[in-house]
């Protein structure tokens, strides 16, 4: 009852202290609950994206001796299977076509027989480039090799020297050729086989007609797969969805009793997604937990500002006969009230943030997860309230003496316990060791051994950044403390322009309050580091996502000539530059070249312009920067850059001569062109990941008698790439395939692409800004508030406003300057560590950290504004007659 009455009185007469604490609690709760919402939204989107990226959910391959018809019936009737269609596969020794007076013959080709309705049942598998779907179709590269277009005839070689003629109806791209031509049932960890260079797709009836002799005499050369689509009513968490799909695939295999093996494309996509989901959770740890801890520290700081008053209240109650138990009850009542109010406001704010940023108002992926997140966030809020109010009150209640109130100031000869034991150095040493050890193995944070159902986090590796954060925070305190103790003389010198002859007095004051000031410096440093490292990580991530998208798409807009269309470099540049919004146009020659028996992509570049206009990154090359290697191509036209894999496979050394076979533009025959290996290209715009060449465009044109280019890399003049892409498509029609980087960003590999992360980081950055500003302003403002009596006495002794300003601004500059400098140093270390630790998020790894100067300037301005406000409010309060101030205290 006493506790309730006390609480009522507190709210009526001193509501600020309770409300301020509740707001601090609310910030921590909102941050954690928002991250729950982020994970909920991210998990669901990752599952959806994984599903959307799969063209055929299962490819069930009939095993030798099994009846394809029985297999189709079993798979078709399996629960959850929505569609099941049989596809036949066989091989042809070669494909031949004679067009415009020349005959081209390919190497071995794959021949597929597709049932009616295949393209509409699996729309992602075939992408029509020209002609129509449904008839005979050839893959884009095959069409290029054979120089065929719709209407041309292709001769399909058959085993035994026979052949059959088909008429091409369309040219298609096979975006999922890796999975389409996978080796079903390959053991986990087996090397992926490269998709075939030549593919022809026939309607089932046509396949049956031309392959009839093979079916009759060599049926073992024909294989059948049942391509299926499953019901996508799956759990929203990628991990749960993966478990479900993988278990069903195994169940189906057991039902087939050896008659078929399941190629689980959906399971493989979900497997990748669940690893990314785990990364998302680690991102939460790195980006969220420090924010929540800082919110707790700021709250404790707010609460500690009222600690003296609370102690005096408690002393007064004790003189009126209140027992320790009553004092504890009062403290608990205040804690519960501030905690519950803070939790309610925090959860409400998180719902609003979730709704506006992620489009979801749930704290977790499922009902149980949502409850756990909400309860977890609430518990954190109550813990913050307890640490801020109840704990100090309980401590005081046990040892409440007048002398006990005379704290904060003093000689404090001995440092804090952790400092005496060097806990900061120990933490940093362990962090350094773990970092070094984990870096040796490429910093694998998410462990997902092949063939093991469970993915897990390498918690040991996480010790490096966690202990680094703690160690650097404590070291910040130690450095500030050291400067105030040992650096009195230089500090006095630094303060002299501000405080004049009072400088020794001001530095003495600061030195004797060094615990208070060192705590403030450490808090400002940690909040600044939180804002800095979060924003640098975010910017680097965004920049890298941009690079990733640029690498995949080639440029802002990439224009690829349709099969059968050939435009010269200058003609293409002239035509494209006329289109509004186009800034620069860089022609990129695309050919196919044989190295030995291997066919690889060859990109011919203009070395003088490609570095800038293709926005080449140094990280894409080895053996020199992008500019260095392009200079070599310019100086030495027969120089060639080769992929790492080719260098390894062919044991190449710099300067080695390589003879490639390329098609001659006039004769259409393969001709040998000599090159000299001079460097490694790991990645290149529009190039495939595995193997390719980069050479001098003019040299290739001269040696092949053709200046034809494959595509044009278009950079816009600032106009949206999507808009420019539409304009180019409008002008070029079906003669070219136009793709833009905006669209590409949504398609590229990682699930952790900008959409979800940008939502999280916007929240993080907003919280970081608020925390940095609040921590600095409060640390100083509340410190000044505690020393109002000191300032009032100094004023009564005759100190002028300018002289009082020496005390106020001296402390402000020390805390803010020290905090920001230490914060910048900590942020730099943390950002580098974050990028290294989360290297799995980046593909390829960034060349350098991207610094968001605008945001950081915003944080600095916000911090300085609160410092200025705290100082001015303090000085303004001292305008009152000193005696009034002293009377009120």
């Amino acid at each position, binding site marked *: 009852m006493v506790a309730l009455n006390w609480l009522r009185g507190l709210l009526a007469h001193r509501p600020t202290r309770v409300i301020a604490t509740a707001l601090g609690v609310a910030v921590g709760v909102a941050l954690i609950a928002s991250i729950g919402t982020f994970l909920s939204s991210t998990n669901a989107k990752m599952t959806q994206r994984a599903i959307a990226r799969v063209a055929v959910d299962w490819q069930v391959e009939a095993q030798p001796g099994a009846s394809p018809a029985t297999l189709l019936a079993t798979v078709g009737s399996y629960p959850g299977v929505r569609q099941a269609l049989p596809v036949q596969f066989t091989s042809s020794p070669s494909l031949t076509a004679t067009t415009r007076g020349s005959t081209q013959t390919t190497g071995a080709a794959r021949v597929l027989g597709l049932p009616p309705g295949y393209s509409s049942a699996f729309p992602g598998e075939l992408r029509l480039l020209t002609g129509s779907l449904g008839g005979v179709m050839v893959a884009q590269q095959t069409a290029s090799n054979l120089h065929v277009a719709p209407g041309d005839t292709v001769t399909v070689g058959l085993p035994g020297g026979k052949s059959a003629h088909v008429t091409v109806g369309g040219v298609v791209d096979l975006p999922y050729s890796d999975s389409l031509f996978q080796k079903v049932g390959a053991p986990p960890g087996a090397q992926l086989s490269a998709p075939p260079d030549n593919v022809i797709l026939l309607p089932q009836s046509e396949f049956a007609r031309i392959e009839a002799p093979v079916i009759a005499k060599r049926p073992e050369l024909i294989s059948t797969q049942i391509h299926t689509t499953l019901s996508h009513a799956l759990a929203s968490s990628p991990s749960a969805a993966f478990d479900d799909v993988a278990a069903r695939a195994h169940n189906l295999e057991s039902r087939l009793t050896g008659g078929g093996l399941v190629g689980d494309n959906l399971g493989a996509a979900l497997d990748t997604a669940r690893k990314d989901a785990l990364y998302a959770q680690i991102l939460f740890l790195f980006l969220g937990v420090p924010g929540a801890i800082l919110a707790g520290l700021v709250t404790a700081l707010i609460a500690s500002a009222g600690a003296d008053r609370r102690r005096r209240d408690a002393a007064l109650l004790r003189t009126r006969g209140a027992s320790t138990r009553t004092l504890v009850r009062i403290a608990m009542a205040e804690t519960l009230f501030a905690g519950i109010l803070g939790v309610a406001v925090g959860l409400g704010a998180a719902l609003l943030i979730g709704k506006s940023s992620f489009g979801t108002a749930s704290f977790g992926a499922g009902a149980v997860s949502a409850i756990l997140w909400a309860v977890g966030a609430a518990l954190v809020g109550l813990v913050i309230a307890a640490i801020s109010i109840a704990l100090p009150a309980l401590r005081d209640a046990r040892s409440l003496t007048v002398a006990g109130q*005379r704290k904060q100031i003093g000689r404090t000869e001995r440092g804090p316990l952790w400092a005496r034991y060097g806990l900061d150095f120990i933490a940093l040493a362990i962090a350094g060791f773990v970092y070094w050890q984990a870096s040796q193995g490429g910093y694998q944070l998410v462990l997902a051994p092949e063939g093991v159902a469970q993915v897990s986090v390498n918690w040991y590796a996480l010790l490096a950044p966690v202990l680094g954060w703690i160690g650097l925070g404590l070291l910040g305190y130690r450095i500030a403390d050291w400067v105030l103790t040992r650096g009195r003389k230089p500090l006095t010198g630094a303060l002299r322009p501000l405080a004049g*002859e*009072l400088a020794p007095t001001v530095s003495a004051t600061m030195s004797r309050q060094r615990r208070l000031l060192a705590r403030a410096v450490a808090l400002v440093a940690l909040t600044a580091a939180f804002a800095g490292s979060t924003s640098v990580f975010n910017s680097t991530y965004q920049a890298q996502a941009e690079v990733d998208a640029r690498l995949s798409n080639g440029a802002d807009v990439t224009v690829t000539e349709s099969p059968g269309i050939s435009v010269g470099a200058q003609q293409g540049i002239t035509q494209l530059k006329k289109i509004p919004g186009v800034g620069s146009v860089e022609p990129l020659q695309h050919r196919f070249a044989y190295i030995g028996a291997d066919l690889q992509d060859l990109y011919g570049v203009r070395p003088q312009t490609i570095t800038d206009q293709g926005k080449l990154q140094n990280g894409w090359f080895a053996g020199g920067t992008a500019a260095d290697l392009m200079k070599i191509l310019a100086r030495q036209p027969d120089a060639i850059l080769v992929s790492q894999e080719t260098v390894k496979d062919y044991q190449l050394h710099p300067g080695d001569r390589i003879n490639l076979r390329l098609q001659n533009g006039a004769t259409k025959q393969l001709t040998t062109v000599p090159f000299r290996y001079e460097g490694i290209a790991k990645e290149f715009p529009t190039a495939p990941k595995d193997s390719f060449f980069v050479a001098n465009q003019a040299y290739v044109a001269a040696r092949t008698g053709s200046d034809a280019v494959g595509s044009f890399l278009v950079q816009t003049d600032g106009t949206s790439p999507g808009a420019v892409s539409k304009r180019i498509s409008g002008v070029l029609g079906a003669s070219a395939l136009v793709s833009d980087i905006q669209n590409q960003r949504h398609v590229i590999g990682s699930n952790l692409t900008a959409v979800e992360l940008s939502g999280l980081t916007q929240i993080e950055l907003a919280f970081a800004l608020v925390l940095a500003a609040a921590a600095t302003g409060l640390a100083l403002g509340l410190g000044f508030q505690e020393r109002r009596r*000191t300032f009032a006495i100094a004023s009564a*002794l*005759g100190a002028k406003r300018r002289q009082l300003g020496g005390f106020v601004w001296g402390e402000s500059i020390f805390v803010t300057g020290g905090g920001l400098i230490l914060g910048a140093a900590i942020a730099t270390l943390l950002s580098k560590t974050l990028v290294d630790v989360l290297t799995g998020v980046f593909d390829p790894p960034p060349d350098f950290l991207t610094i968001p100067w605008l945001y950081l300037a915003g944080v600095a301005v916000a911090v300085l504004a609160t410092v200025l406000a705290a100082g001015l409010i303090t000085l303004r309060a001292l305008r009152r007659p000193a005696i009034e101030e002293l009377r009120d205290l």
Partner: protein
Amino acid sequence: MNEGLPLVRCEGAARTYGEGATATVALQATDCEVFAGQRIALVGPSGSGKSTLLHLMAGLDDPTVGTVSWPAIGTRDELRPGRVAVVFQGPSLLPPLTVLENVSLPLVIGGMTDADGREVARSALRTLGLEELADKLPEEISGGQAQRVAVARALAGEPSLILADEPTGQLDRTSGAAVVDVLLAASEHAGSALVISTHDQTVAARLPERWGMHSGEIQTDTRETAWSH
């Protein structure tokens, strides 16, 4: 009668705290003057207006009605540091500064160099027998010692007028007596005027003049001695 201009002059000076129904009159319209060399005890019970009058004399507060002036000193801005020193009722040393730094603070504020300020402060402490406390922090000395240090701080600038607000109020009799001894000796030595507010008749009895105060007014009969100088 006093010669020359008064150090402080109150003309109809009154002080009211708050407004309207809650307004409290702390000091009624008061006329008084303090001249060089005078040593006065403002005597009266708690709430009689002693501290308020002292604060007005010190220029630490403004009268609501009437005026306070310092004809022999100048404007209010010229009172401190140096010309008028105040000894406060409660603890008034700055906690983060040592005793020496506390005493030298008003001197440095007044324009002395830090080194000179320390020298003068050390001398003032020596005069009051407090030199051994120079390097101690306020929390490391007793209440009586702290009040004597506050006196030393007031005297270090050799002020013309010392105003002490209940300087013995929170001290035991022995410590209180020591503080009064110091104040009297110092004012005698420097020729400063001294005004001590107190409710302790023993303290008041040690000063040659006593102004009795009651309900915010100086009682005429007890002030006659002052006017008769």
